[in-house]
Each structure stands twice: as C-alpha cells, then as structure tokens.
C-alpha cells in the first residue's frame, strides 16, 4: 500500500492528547509518519487535504464521533480510500460488528501496546 519508498502516513484521531502522543510515538517507532486530529470533523478535512494511508480512529469523540466519520469518509469519492483501524475502549461484540459493517479494516481494543499495534498494522499491509 502507498508509495514504495516514502514512509506510510497515519492520521491519529483521538480527543485525548495523551493517547495521540502515545500512538504517535509507537507509530514513528514503527517507521510511519503521523498527523493528528482531535475529532472526526477535523480528521475529515485533513483527510481531504492530505490523503493519509492509514487512520487510527477513536470511537467516542466530540463534534463528530469515529463511527460517523468512518461512514462519511467511506461515502466520499476518493481516488484511494485509507485503511482505517478503530482504536477504542468499545469492546462489545456488537460494536465491533457495527464498525466492520461500516467499513473498518481492523479494530484495536484499548488498552493496547506496541506489539498489538504492530500486529494490526501488519494485518492491513502497513508493515
């Protein structure tokens, strides 16, 4: 996925600055470049402007939540859709099913560590 030489870009979408910082450090450590958004609305504008390869997406956020963002971006006509990995405390079977039905590529249940993140990135072909 993405270009063969440049590092893959990942947009981290989470209303928690702590989680964004943690995820950014892990992703950079895994060789990706990152950008950040604090809610789905900001993330949508950033997606249109910079077309990230991947999105690490929280569920519960103000303004526009993760699931609404996911549905909106999947309904947007883009030349290349990003791989989207939910990263949330929502761990109910029904929630995961809902996310997958809306077009999520992978799903991380918080709390997570670098091994889990690397494993999930590998599953979507980013590592």
């Amino acid at each position: 996925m993405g270009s063969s030489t440049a590092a893959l870009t990942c947009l981290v979408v989470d209303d928690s600055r702590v989680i964004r910082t943690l995820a950014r450090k892990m992703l950079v450590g895994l060789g990706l470049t990152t950008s950040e958004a604090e809610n789905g609305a900001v993330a949508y504008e950033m997606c249109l402007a910079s077309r990230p390869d991947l999105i690490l997406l929280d569920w519960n956020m103000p303004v526009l939540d993760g699931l609404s963002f996911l549905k909106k971006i999947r309904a947007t006509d883009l030349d290349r859709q990003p791989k989207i990995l939910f990263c949330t405390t929502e761990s109910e079977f029904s929630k995961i099913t809902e996310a997958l039905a809306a077009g999520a590529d992978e799903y991380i249940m918080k709390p997570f560590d670098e091994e889990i993140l690397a494993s999930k990135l590998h599953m979507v072909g980013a590592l």
Partner: protein
Amino acid sequence: MTMDPNVFATVASFLKAQSGLALTPDKAYLLNGRLQPVAEQHGCKSVAELVAKLNGAAPAQLKQDVVEAMTTNETSFFRDTTPFEILKTHVLSQLLERRKVRRSLRILCAAASSGQEPYSLAMLMAENAARLAGWKTQILAVDLDTKILKRAEAGIYTQFEVQRGLPVQMLMKYFEQCPGGWKAKPEIRSMVQFQRCNLLEPFSHLGEFDVIFCRNVLIYFDTPTKRHVLDRLANQLAPDGFLFLGGAETVLDITTSFAPSAGHRGLYLRTEALRDRKAG
C-alpha cells in the same frame, strides 16, 4: 540476587534430564523469580531449599511444578504468519492431492503452549472448509506443561491475547465474548485434542502425522537433544509429510532426517522423500 552456582548447576542438570531444556548461565537470573512461588507452594523457605529436594526421591508434583515454572510459553495467534501461508497454499494443495483417496489429515502441534497455535491451525482449516469438504481433519496439540494445557483446552483468551496475530474478522467469526475475555467457539475447540507429551519420552503411540508444527521448541535444547527429538519426529511424520520449525531453527549440521523445502522458509521434508522424488 546472585545465584549460587551449585543451585544453578543442580537446576540446569535437572531440567536437562526432565525436559531437555538447556538452561544457559545467561538465564540464571530467571531462576529466583520463577522458582520462588514454587518454593512457597511446596513449603520451602527458599529456592535453595526447593532445589535441594530435586533428587530422585522428590515428589512427582514438585518436579513437574519446577519444570513448568521454567518453561517458556511465549506464543500468539498465527505467529510469524508465513508458516500458515505456506500451509494454506503449498502444503494443503499437495496433501489434498496426495491424500485424495484416504481423505483425512492429521496434524501434530508439538509444544502447543496456551493453544494459540493449534487453534490458529483449526481456524485455517475452517477457512478452507470448502476445499476440505468430506475430509476428516485431526489436530493433536501436545505440551509438557499440564497447567498450560488446561488453559489451552478451555480456549479462553484475554483481550490482549486475541489482538496479537488474530485478524478482527476471525475474532468475530470464531470467538464469543465471555467473562475474562474471549472464548473459542465449540466448532473450533472440537477440532483440537490436547494431550500431555514430553518430547524426550517415547511418543510413537501418537501415531503418524501428515504435518508437524514444532516451532520455537528446539531453540531451548542443546544439539544432541535437538537431534534426538528431530529424528523421532521424522519417525512420526509420513514419508511425504511436512515439518514446520521456527524461523530461528534449522536442521543443518544437526540431523540428516530432514532437509529444507526449497523456497519455503521454515518448512522441512523428510530426506527419504526428497531422495525418492529425485530417483523418480
């Protein structure tokens, strides 16, 4: 804490005899941390007192507990990915052709630990159900450690464990939520049989297998033990069967029973099968 060299030597010698585990001096630091709970459980005031009991007359349970405490159970679903890809594509295609009359497959998972590897194999088989329609598939998962086997048999994994190596789509398909985490569904658990087995002891009673997974086991053994185990695994593998070893393991300079399968990392074939193929 500094380890008394005599205590270390006693444990190393005991583990070698009981399980083949080669305890090197750089792992001495593990001893106190792992054996302290066992010492307390058996009423010993210290690890040294526990170790002093590890002679021929020691109760079997004490010996078993020491071996289990020193055994490494690191594992994850679809660990290293590549062997499962090779199994799904190359190996399964070959076996479907070679066993088309018998229509049955037996897979041995040696050192199954907490069950992620055998359940990964079961899920792989389930994903290929259409190709295996009408076939009988048996996955036998063995390990030295009885406690870990009980855990494996229950098929319950924490949220952390199900996120290591297991794609979420497979989690949804083959697991259900339960108190404490996620439980493999009955149709997956019923595909795997668990049994205690020490690879140093005779295991010919397990029968013949078409595929053997023995990954990240040999790395804990010294060379003569590796040879001993590999040669006996060769006896249990069908002449045209397939052996998977871990990425850091090899048969080179250890045994002539197996040779690498060209182009398939971690896959080994019995040398007699290669000879027959060349002769044919």
